[in-house]
């Protein structure tokens, strides 16, 4: 079987299976989950049983159901963030590449300033100033993340802008919007797509991290980072409760990375095997 004209490797299949499964349960959470997201159905940190497959959390809620709803929240927020950050970052990057030295300098130096401030500190300040609702969370992370996207988009576009078909379009009198959208963007896409996967992973971990610090997604919504934080007390008693959401985070990250590795290898692969020496 081929995807996008290429044959996925075995590890890519594993990655696609993991990602696909998580996305499936995220979309169909209400039908897949045995219990609701925030209802207490048992006592604190119950063990595995036929009614609670992964036990319960510190408030007696079903761990499996929380994980399933958590997938929805964590993946959803990370995905929205990444999409937003790519829209902003790519548009600004292409503009910097084609808009002439003044625009390029202004945008690039602004991004340098942003990059000089540690990401987590920046996010913590903004979120504690404006409060942590899902929209502020998404916008804050997206804007911080778009600086990284900008750097890649600009670098890729810089190499395309000097090609003669772009010059031909300029000579025709085409506007900046056409040049960005029709001449440069399609040729910049392959590296940008693999970057999308990596940035998604990073944002996903960042959301989980912020939730663990209490500034991410707020209770009673379930999300994996927050669940690790809520259940951290169980570790001292030798109970596995916080390990399940942690494992979900790890699985998702590995899954996305496996897929991205494969996409990157397509882009980087030379037209054949190595030379006969």
């Amino acid at each position, binding site marked *: 079987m081929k995807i996008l004209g290429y044959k996925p490797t075995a590890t890519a299949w594993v990655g696609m299976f993991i990602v696909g499964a998580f996305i499936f349960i995220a979309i169909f959470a209400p039908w897949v989950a045995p219990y609701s997201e925030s209802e207490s159905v048992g006592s604190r940190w119950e063990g595995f049983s036929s009614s609670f497959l992964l036990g319960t959390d510190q408030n007696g809620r079903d761990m499996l159901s929380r994980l399933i709803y958590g997938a929805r929240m964590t993946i959803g927020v990370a995905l929205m963030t990444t999409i937003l950050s790519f829209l902003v970052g790519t548009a600004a990057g292409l503009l910097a590449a084609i808009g002439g030295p003044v625009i390029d300098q202004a945008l690039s130096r602004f991004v340098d300033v942003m990059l000089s401030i540690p990401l987590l500190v920046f996010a913590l300040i903004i979120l504690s100033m404006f409060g942590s609702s899902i929209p502020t969370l998404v916008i804050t992370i997206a804007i911080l993340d778009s600086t990284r996207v900008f750097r890649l988009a600009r670098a890729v576009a810089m190499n395309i802008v000097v090609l003669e078909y772009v010059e031909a379009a300029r000579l025709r009198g085409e506007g900046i919007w056409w040049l960005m959208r*029709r*001449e440069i963007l399609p*040729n910049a896409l392959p590296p940008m797509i693999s970057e999308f996967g990596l940035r998604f992973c990073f944002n996903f971990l960042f959301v989980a991290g912020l939730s663990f610090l209490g500034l991410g997604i707020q209770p009673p919504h379930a999300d994996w980072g927050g669940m690790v934080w809520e259940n951290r007390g169980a570790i001292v008693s030798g109970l596995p409760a916080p390990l399940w959401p942690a494992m979900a985070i790890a699985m998702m990250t590995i899954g996305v990375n496996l897929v991205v590795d494969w996409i990157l290898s397509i882009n980087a692969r030379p*037209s054949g095997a190595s030379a*006969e020496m």
Partner: protein
Amino acid sequence: MAQPILKLTDLRVETVGGLVLVDNISLELQRGEVVGLIGESGAGKSTIGLSSMVYARAGCKITGGKIEIDGVSVRDLSPEGRRDMRGQRIAYIAQSAAASFNPAHTIMDQVCEMPIQHGLMKKDEAEKTAVDLFRSLGLPNPETFGNRYPHQVSGGQLQRAMTAMAISCRPDILVFDEPTTALDVTTQIEVLALVKKLIKELNTAALYITHDLAVVAQVADRIMVLRGGKMIELGTTEQILMKPENPYTQALVSERKAADHFDEDIEEETRGETVLDVKDVVGQYGDFTVLKNVSIKVSKGETVAVVGESGSGKSSLARLIVGLLPRSSGSVKFGGKELSTSTKERSKDDLRRIQLIYQLPDVALNPRQTIGEIIGRPYAFYFNKSGAEVKARVAELLRQVGLPEDYAGRLSTALSGGQKQRICIARALAANPDLIICDEPTSALDQLVAEDILKLLKRLQDELGLSYLFITHDLGIVRRIAHRTAVMLRGEVVTEGPTTQIFAPPFHPYTEKLISSVPEMRTDWLDEVLAKRKVI
């Protein structure tokens, strides 16, 4: 007969995907003999050259045949054995010296690397040999030449330095892979003379790969003509040039000979109305002045050729006319109207009336757009058309440039070089221009394909009354298509006039040098020219 120094038997090279690149090639090379390999791109010339060192490029594999050097079958050697053999017994001289040198090391380090690595010489000894080589290759200041970095010397000097590198171990066989193709004619002649001298002095055998029959005629004893990985013809140089047997060889030979003659219809007594009038323009890149008071005129339905070596400013002139290079003084009038210095300030109609065709069709076409989008866009853009009208025009344009209409749905990456250049021409035509500036449109194409493109350009000129400003370094092309010719040297037009006058005595001294540097289809041409120049 003595044992051949290099013997290929039934050589076969395939790609990993199973495509056959070289099929059933057998060749014997004696000591002191030079065999020329000739053919268009994709003919397998370089693949054979590399195979003789038992090397296959990434993605290729030598799948059959025997390769013997001095009776030893090299394919059976261990990787270490092959490494010892390369450089010592057989050395390779690549087309682009600039790409073959490491820019981070001095020339001396790189020339000495091979004898030191092979354990033939100590460092000081190798350096002494290298200086001797630089001297015998006629490089300037041989004692200090090696201390320079590759970007600090000219292309011709770098090509000679690479030759020094290849012969530093005194190999028995030299493989020259288009060593002069990237050079100007005036530089080519120096390198050719050197190659010839070297082969004679060292009495080595050589494979000389090129696409230019006239070049190979100067150095080779025998010529092998290749096409699509198969041998078409093998014969002595005289026989191939004078009495080619195979029809393909005949086409190559007659095509190459045609370049030495004028076409009958390029003589035009009166000039029509002036389309483009460039007067005393000065162009600068930073502090460097590339164009010094250049003036040129193009009339309606006329082809004006601009010739010169690389760096003479011919492409800069084109960039200045279209407004990519701002002019610091002078004027560019088009159809009687002064044009702004920069593309951005010109009106849509001014932009439409001058179109440009590039040297490399590969990068002139967006690989992610279909042919229909590429050709249709200028029409839609300049004439505010859409949908069915654009589609009909695209089909018409494709017909005009001799391509099937159903190409409109394809991506340009699926086309050959000649077809891509036709698409570029169709894109220029879509704007319905008065003037097309052609910047070396055929120099990246094979001889026979280039010939077709030239014919197409001529036909379109007759049909549509187009004017061309034709930038080229190839005098053969100029003689065949240009009504008028301007010769440029270091940013100045040294002489300008009707082509037939430019190419007839009395010559301007520089024109004469250019003309006499173009290889002719005779085996004794090089010796004759060199003898003449030494007298001068």
